[in-house]
């Protein structure tokens, strides 16, 4: 399983502008292009997950995630913000890079947890923070995934 195959180029933004955690979550959700009601439900679920414990895993990276019936297959998005945002991350540092993962409650292919685990591993690569900061286009992001998360 390669992470690259789950990312649609339209769901990658290197210029998210939200100034708060909530704003960022809404921008990430918008990248999935759902209807308004589904976006609202998804936002509530992601907030609920964040209330259980921040998904900011350190090194400037957060992986907000949840399961929801509003999607019928695994959906992922990536957002980058040049200036970090306060996210209550594990290392108390601002977060610049956001990977959103949403899956239906039941998946035939059972991809949610493997993708979540693989992204968590990807985030631990010592080069990743710098490489993500240097990206100039969504295409370069996809290439980085191909290179680092085979």
């Amino acid at each position: 399983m390669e992470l690259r195959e789950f990312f649609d180029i339209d769901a990658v933004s290197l210029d998210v502008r939200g100034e708060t955690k909530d704003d960022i979550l809404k921008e990430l959700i918008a990248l999935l292009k759902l209807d308004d009601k589904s976006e609202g439900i998804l936002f509530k679920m992601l907030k609920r997950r964040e209330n259980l414990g921040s998904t900011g895993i350190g090194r400037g990276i957060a992986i907000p995630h949840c399961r929801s019936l509003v999607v019928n297959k695994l959906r992922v998005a990536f957002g980058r913000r040049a200036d970090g945002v306060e996210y209550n991350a594990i290392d108390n540092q601002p977060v610049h890079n956001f990977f959103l993962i949403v899956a239906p409650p039941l998946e035939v292919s059972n991809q949610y947890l493997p993708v979540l685990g693989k992204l968590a591993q990807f985030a631990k690569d010592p080069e990743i923070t710098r490489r993500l900061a240097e990206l100039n286009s969504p295409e370069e992001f996809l290439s980085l995934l191909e290179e680092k998360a085979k």
Partner: protein
Amino acid sequence: MHPQLELLLQIQDLKAQRRELSESGGGRALEEQEFNIDLDEAVTQLDARIEELKQELPPQVRSRVERFVETGGRPVVSVINGICYGCFTAVSTSSVADISRNDALNYCENCGRFLYVIPG
């Protein structure tokens, strides 16, 4: 979307989250190791929120939900291409009002589960 359907979706999504945190499979370990989550506290919080949301449902809807919970089933299922994903039979369009907009609270005539059509 019908407000009670929205509540039902939230309840079911929270239950999915709870299941992930309480079962001994990969989700529990991942949340604990990578995200440092306090699992017991998280499950307690989720249970409380699920109960709060259930209390917002009218008694007849709540009792239908409880019926499925008792048997370990999902009270809300998606409809994809006209098929109920609870019992995998075709949903009768004649008996289901405005199903595609999720504006009414509909249930499958075969299995009794509430139906949700994923937009798009």
